[in-house]
């Protein structure tokens, strides 16, 4: 009855069934939910734990990984800048050792020295000698700085004090950004003087960019006051103060994270360049740095989502399949139980019927004989007043005895046919016999019952008792469906060469379409308190056992039609039951 149905439809069946059936055996919905919840927990909890652990491990690894190249870049750039500055200091130190103060004060000699410097180091802008009082004694370069006095400038004081000095980038007299490297020496008279050279900031920019492979990085140099020594992509122009906390002086390269003025996190690498005011900064927004992490994170979350969906689909399908199998097994078991119960019940009824029939037969025989004798005496006696009246009375008694005898014979035949056995059956006779059981009720209720038989309907070989049971049940249902004065039409027909059909159609209340599909299910009933819901289920089972088919059609408020199609011969091996005969 439920072959070939989808899972969803099957779920709906027992989901709705549990609402409508008052039977504690059927708890499929709860079982279904339990299976799904427990299986989902067992499957999804480890999956979620694994994904969460992976998530945090990957995130930590990625965060460390993005810091590493920044640290490397800052360290390399610091070394390069340090090397550059040390080299320029060495050159200046070499010059003051190689040349005397008077030579360096000689403009021609200084020009020759500057020319030599320019040949090897293009970054030198100019070079000058400054006496201890701050006056520039000699100068070679593009600016007219010969008579300038640097007595008040910080770099001059620092150089005299420390012996060498690398300045911040500054504008100075020439009004463009540059920085200076100066070394202190002593002239022939023991007076200190300073050899100073200035450099274009482009060298800082070149060193700054060396080794950078990411356009999203902002790399710049600041001094210890946080003033930009090179241009920056994001934090300002050269010589502007940046909105950035200046890292404390440290030899090691440091990586830290902080929020920019817009509130976005950025990763900052800092490296102090020794013996100089320069701090090398490499900076990048964290979300840019972690792009690959975000991609992986999204994939991880997608993997989790897809896995959860797939697992849930499999669990739902599995649980539904399992519940359907359990339900089928339950129904089968119940069906067998009901059949056994029914068979036992019918056997008891059979025994009772046979016993009653036999016990009634004896007194019935006495009545028959006594009445017969009475009739004989009347027949053989001479006429007397009211003899005919006596005779008709005796005939009535004998007629009633004969009727009782027919009933007891029918009961005995019913009991004998409890076994499954094959015998030739004329369907019309069988149906008339079944209707005989119901003739009183049909007479009381003025029901119109017609039997119509098609020509050429074969005598079938089947089980008489079982077929009586089938048709008695269907006709009983038809009796229940029609009102007093209702009509039941029975049509017996040939179905091809090997089958015959019996159609029982009533003009009763009909069956709603939503009940039609369940009408042969065990326990399905529309009779509420009065029906067991087993009658049509047993009927269906018997018809199937006899190799036949049963179907039902109905129009609510109009009619209901049961059609039983039976084979002309049933297959052997379909027999069961037990001998319920109590003949004696």
């Amino acid at each position, binding site marked *: 009855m439920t072959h070939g149905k989808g899972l969803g439809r099957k779920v709906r069946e027992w989901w709705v069934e549990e609402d409508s059936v008052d039977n504690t055996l059927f708890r499929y919905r709860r079982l279904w939910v339990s299976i799904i919840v427990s299986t989902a927990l067992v499957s999804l909890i480890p999956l979620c734990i694994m994904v969460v652990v992976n998530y945090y491990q990957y995130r930590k690894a990625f965060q460390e990984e993005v810091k590493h190249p920044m640290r490397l870049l800052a360290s390399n750039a610091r070394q390069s800048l340090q090397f550059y500055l040390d080299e320029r200091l060495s050159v200046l130190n070499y010059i003051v050792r190689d040349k005397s103060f008077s030579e360096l004060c000689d403009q021609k000699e200084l020009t020759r020295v500057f020319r030599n410097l320019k040949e090897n180091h293009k970054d030198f802008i100019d070079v000058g000698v400054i006496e201890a009082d701050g006056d520039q004694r000699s100068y070679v370069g593009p600016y007219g700085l010969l008579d300038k006095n640097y007595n008040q400038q910080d770099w001059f004081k620092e150089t005299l004090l420390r012996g060498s000095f690398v300045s911040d980038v500054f504008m100075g007299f020439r009004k463009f950004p540059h920085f200076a490297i100066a070394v202190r020496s002593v002239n022939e008279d023991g007076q200190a003087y300073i050899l100073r050279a200035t450099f274009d900031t482009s060298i800082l920019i070149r060193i700054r960019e060396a080794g950078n492979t990411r356009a999203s990085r902002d790399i710049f140099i600041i001094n210890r006051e946080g003033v930009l020594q090179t241009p920056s992509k994001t934090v300002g122009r050269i010589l502007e103060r940046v909105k950035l906390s200046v890292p404390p002086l440290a030899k090691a390269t440091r990586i830290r994270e902080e929020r920019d003025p817009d509130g976005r996190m950025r990763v900052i690498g800092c490296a102090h360049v020794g013996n100089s005011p320069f701090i090398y900064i490499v900076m990048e927004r964290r979300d840019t740095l972690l792009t690959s992490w975000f991609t992986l994170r999204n994939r991880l979350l997608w993997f989790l989502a897809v896995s959860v969906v797939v697992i849930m689909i499999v669990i739902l399908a599995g649980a539904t399949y399992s519940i359907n199998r359990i339900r089928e097994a339950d129904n089968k078991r119940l069906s067998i139980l009901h059949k056994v119960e029914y068979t036992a019940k019918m056997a008891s009824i059979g025994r009772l019927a046979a016993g009653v029939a*036999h016990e009634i*037969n*004896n007194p*019935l*025989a*006495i009545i*028959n*004989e*006594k009445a*017969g*004798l009475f009739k*004989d*005496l009347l027949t*053989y006696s001479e006429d007397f007043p009211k003899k005919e009246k006596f005779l008709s009375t005796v005939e009535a008694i004998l007629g009633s*005895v*004969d009727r009782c*005898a027919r009933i007891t014979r029918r009961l005995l035949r019913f009991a004998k046919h409890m076994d499954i056995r094959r015998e030739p059956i004329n369907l019309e006779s069988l149906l008339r016999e079944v209707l005989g059981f119901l003739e009183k009720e049909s007479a009381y209720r003025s029901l119109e019952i017609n039997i119509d038989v098609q020509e050429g309907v074969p005598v079938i070989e089947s089980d008489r008792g079982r077929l009586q049971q089938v048709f008695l049940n269907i006709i009983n249902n038809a009796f229940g469906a029609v009102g007093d004065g209702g009509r039941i039409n029975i049509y017996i027909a040939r179905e091809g060469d090997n089958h015959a059909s019996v159609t029982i159609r009533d003009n009763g209340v009909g069956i709603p379409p939503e009940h039609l599909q369940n009408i042969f299910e065990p326990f399905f009933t529309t009779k509420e308190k009065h029906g067991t819901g087993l009658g049509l289920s047993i009927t269906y089972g018997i018809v199937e056992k006899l190799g036949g088919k049963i179907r039902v059609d109905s129009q609510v408020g109009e009619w209901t039609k049961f059609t039983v199609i039976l084979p002309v011969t049933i297959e052997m091996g379909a027999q069961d039951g037990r001998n319920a*005969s109590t*003949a*004696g």
Partner: protein
Amino acid sequence: MSVSATTTAEYLLVDDEVDFVVTLAERLELRHLDSVAVVHDGETALGYIAAHTPRVVVLDLRMPGTGGMEVLKTVKERHPEIEVIIFTGHGSEKERMMALELGAFAYLEKPVDIEQLARTMQEARARVGGEP
């Protein structure tokens, strides 16, 4: 006329339902079967048969004591010439087959039409033959 169980009769009716069998005998007498004896159990029947050798025995199957089937068997062993008609209200196909195999002349189920019974008894008597 019907005869007592101590008198020789052509027909013996054996049935534990006294009212039934006595009335039956009376009705048979009305149909000119007037040499009918009546007994009500199997043992008495066997004693009567041994003493008087009736020609036809009409025998019920279910009786207290010796049952009808046993009486039939004994009668056919001892007096195969006697025809036995089984006349029972407890019949079954199996018992019908058994009775006929044991040599019963007919197997009738109660209630039966008196004319049919009388006819069957006369046919049985005719088969036995001999003088009345």
